[in-house]
């Protein structure tokens, strides 16, 4: 994160990073009904972390990433296909 070279996420684009975390790390595809809620929860976390005195944008996004890594997620059940 914010590495000089080879970093995956940049704190200057926290919104893009969070969108990617929710989709790729937490496994909520953009079409998933919970996707938007997950993005909101992580965005709120990043904002709240930044408000903590002495926290840099990099540390805030790292903390957001840590939360995304620890979040559970299940595969959605597929609807049962009915025979015609």
């Amino acid at each position, binding site marked *: 994160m914010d590495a000089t070279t080879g970093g995956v996420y940049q704190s200057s684009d926290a919104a893009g990073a969070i969108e990617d975390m929710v989709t790729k790390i*937490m496994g909520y595809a953009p079409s998933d009904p*919970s996707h938007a809620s997950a993005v909101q929860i*992580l965005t709120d976390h990043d904002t709240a972390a930044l408000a903590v005195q002495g926290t840099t944008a990099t540390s805030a996004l790292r903390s957001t990433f840590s939360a995304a890594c620890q979040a*559970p997620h299940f595969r959605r059940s597929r609807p049962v296909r009915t025979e015609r």
Partner: protein
Amino acid sequence: MKPVTRRQTLLTALFGTGYVGLRALATGLPAWFVSKPTAASADELACAIDAKENLQYLVVSTSSAGDSISCNCPGTYDASAVIHPAQAEFAATSFSLGDKAVSAAQVWSTLTPAVLARTNFFHHVTGGTVHGDHPKVMRLLGKLAGNEMWPSIYAKHLAPCFGTVQAEPLAVGTGGNALELLSYTGRTLPAVEPMQLKQLLTGSTKDPVVKLRSLRDSTLDQLNQLAKASGTPEQQRFLDALALSQNQVRQLAETLATTLDSITDNNVGGQALAAAALIAANVTPVVTLHIPFGKDNHDDADLYDEWFDHTDHGSVGAGVPGIQLVMDALASLGLSDKVTFATMNVFGRDLSGTTKVSSRAGRDHFGNHSVMMLIGKNVNPGVTGGVTDISSGVYGASDIDSQSGGSLASGGDIPRADTHVAAAKTLGVALGIPADALNADFTADNQAVKYAASAVVNAT
């Protein structure tokens, strides 16, 4: 390419690629779920829920030295011909294992009542005669399918349901002794020393990301609720049963840090703390360590070394106090009901019938008698089997009645020649593994060997 450090190699070995184990630790969820959450089947989820109630992790002390742990425990004082050290700590003493009165060396009575109430001493033969037999004895002399070691057999059954980071057992007490290394599906496994583990897992609390954890805790609780809201009833039940609240996670992390900080050396105390920490962190279902009980005491005037280790006179966690150290370490992390402790050595040592042992000048290797000690929630306290005169005053393990655990000179439904296999099966059942499920792990002839039903409670 960046060079891979030994620290990275060890961390990957312990916690998996991407340190999935650390994520599992942080959530309380099984490693297989954390690594592939979208692939978990309903059966796997149910298995993990059931495991919390029925299955046991295993901490086991093994010794290629063939220590004299088998010579002075309950069951050996029933035959007056068996020789014991003359020191006060070996005076015949009556005490209770649960509701059963037994007689043994006084030092055995010093285990706490809570431990004694869950302890069974299982007398058996091993067939091993030299130290080099240890790896063979760990494979029950070829009687296990695939020539697997018995700790690995149990680990294979336990790991999927516990969702441990690794299925392989882990040795923390080999002390560089290659004979006590473990193998798993033919691979020899690396051992970890307690001090190595401490250095690997203790870190800084001043990192800015660490300082944000209370804020992160609240976020994680929200994310857990989100996952539950979109899950099936089975998935919701899984999260309710296994996912830790962030408060619980914090308590576990702080207790683990305290435990790891308490490791000061690689002796039994350090091994006990390392074993408890590895199980609390759900790294492995089986940990082996090594508690000395007199070592290889061929030449041991007055059986001094036997006394020295049994009583932990050297304050290294040897002997009976060493077992108590293990039980205390498990209790300190709230694992008393989740972990079974056992011992199993390459062989026992002469009990009687030789000039050397009769004059208390030492004990030689003895493949005709050894003792497996079991302590755990599913263990019925008491003595299983015992000793009998097998040849002109030489005492060895007797036959066993599988239902009562009684010692029989002959005619038991567990013949003395089968007592090693029976002991291994009994331990498996005490770990909560169904006896039927274990059968396939024993080669054809040994599937008929019974486990001692008398030694376990809650058998499935």
